[in-house]
């Protein structure tokens, strides 16, 4: 008999997350996310996370809705969104690749890896590849510093990444459909 980790929730599955499939936003759905969280103290970050998690980005049209619900000005809301690197105001590609640029990864060749990745995907940071498959973002530390260079693809972190390993990963993500377990 196999005894699985039956005490760990399904939501805790450590399996790599697949393609992001954000939902189409509507003002009503945005309002729904706001209403669920707006009574928390300091609610705006949780609200922005909820919107981005659900729709893949924070649509411009969300700004006045949030502003009204939280009694902020639109400028304040815009200022908050633009302050944080995590929030994006345009849809990302099917996969988001975060490349660690911090010192521990630099010490094991991340500068060369960065160059390779940009070249392979034909994009610079904050850009999405023409086929809409990959958005490239820099990140300053994924906490995997003893086994760098590290990248994060969607929610999965990969360690000791080489140019070859990255190419294989890209091939797998672009050619196979997501395996549903």
């Amino acid at each position: 008999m196999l005894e699985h980790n039956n005490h760990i929730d399904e939501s805790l599955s450590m399996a790599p997350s697949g393609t992001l499939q954000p939902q189409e936003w509507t003002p009503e759905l945005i309002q729904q996310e706001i209403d669920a969280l707006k009574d928390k103290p300091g609610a705006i970050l949780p609200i922005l996370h909820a919107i981005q998690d659900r729709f893949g980005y924070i649509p411009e049209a969300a700004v006045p809705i949030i502003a009204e619900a939280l009694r902020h000005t639109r400028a304040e809301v815009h200022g908050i969104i633009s302050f944080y690197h995590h929030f994006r105001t345009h849809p990302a590609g099917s996969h988001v690749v975060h490349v660690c640029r911090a010192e521990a990864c630099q010490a094991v060749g991340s500068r060369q890896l960065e160059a390779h990745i940009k070249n392979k995907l034909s994009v610079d940071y904050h850009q999405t590849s023409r086929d809409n498959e990959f958005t490239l973002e820099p990140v300053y530390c994924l906490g995997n510093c003893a086994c760098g260079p590290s990248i994060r693809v969607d929610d999965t972190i990969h360690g000791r990444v080489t140019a070859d390993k990255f190419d294989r990963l890209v091939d797998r993500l672009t050619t196979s459909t997501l395996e549903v377990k």
Partner: protein
Amino acid sequence: MTVTVYVPCDTTALALGADDVASLIEREAESRQLDLKLVRNGSRGLFWLEPLIEVDTPEGRVAYGPVDPSDVAELADAGLFEGERAHALAHGLTGEIPYLKNQQRLTFSRIGLTDPLSIDDYRAHRGFAGLEEALTMATQAIVDEVKNSGLRGRGGAAFPTGIKWQTVHDEPEGQKYIVCNADEGDSGTFADRLVMECDPYMLIEGMTIAGLAVGATQGYIYLRSEYPIAHRMFNEALKRAYNAGYLGNDILGSGRHFDLEVRLGAGAYICGEETSLLDSLEGKRGMVRAKPPLPAIKGLFGRPTVVNNVLSLAAVPFIIDQGAQAYANYGMGKSRGTLALQLAGNVKQGGLVELAFGTTLRELMEGFGGGTLSGRPLKAVQVGGPLGAYLPESQWDSPIDYEGFAAFGGVVGHGGVVMFDDTVDMGEQARFAMEFCSVESCGKCTPCRIGAVRGVEVIDRIRAGENADANLELLSDLCETMVDGSLCAMGGMTPFPVQSVMQHFPNDLTRQQA
């Protein structure tokens, strides 16, 4: 007979294929018709051996690693399930591996032993003993224990934790907060992540004790969004702690009250600075506040607030359970207890090393780390994150303690140690320090906001050989201005790595000029 096999589930083990290893082990056990109990434990922090799998034997747990998915079938044939030790990947009893055995683990004593989410496992290793003790103590007595332990903030600033608690304790009754700074943004650090992924109840327990000590009923953990696994694990641990009565309105039937919530940051390094973190939690841009007023008096939403690092709070359950003296017995001078050192970068045997203050960098990098991963000579080591100085070989033999390091311009910080071999271009590293600050500055004060941008430009000119001497002098002035004129440690310390390169590796900075 049931065979128990452990496969870690922290970020690093997973990043190296632990999930695949786990499912292949299940498959092998099935084909051998073995009754397998697969436990997803936390990591021991021996990252050079991850995925490090263990098998229960009558003598203890036997370790194998690093196990690539492609090794599993061969390992099973070589007697993995029987704990055979002949295979090249076998390391004998886990507890006897020198890297682990030679540590002094107080805070991380449970890490990797237990299933991180199992409250029973946690309790079996003295978990919640500190909280149970704290529930019987007067608030002042708890604060006194923490004071007497000599614990200083492990986030970097090293302020005495007990004094901070005393200030909040002495404020008039009313809403007070415990805020845990889990924005572990420094390169080379992963100890906070390990606590949250591998021993989360320890942090819950530490924060609850802090709440009892100062009269706070609400705690927030400000966690960086770069740690998705820590987020999932910790939220699940919170849910279970509530269900088991360790949190909420009536902690273990005592009538005492403490609530905890995780809040995600959004990728801003500056939010690791305590006042920026508070602004961010309040729902603003994470901009630095001028001090005073101190957060202990006027913190989150203007109320008295304890802001502590994960490791500071994680040290508390041990201190309350075993007594202040048991903790203070470790360490040297005014640096008491143990430090979670994190060996990273170009290192052969990277990972978490918990040791009493007073060890040397050389012992750490050579004794534990085994030198560089590349096998080339070590050239420089950056201690204390991206704002820490790069230390040359002449400084590797100083004992690690806060005062000793400060005396030569070193920074202990959060305990991150990043090693570089002799292929590193220190001029590039100096430039990167300024570039990082220009990306991550909150923008509130001019020396940091403008200084960092100008710093990149001046270094570029020096490296291009343009008026190198005059520009070096300018860079030196700029660094002084940033150190003296910045509002917080971001701008105030960004020059440290740059100045250390100017001082110890000057040729790297100017070598572009032929």
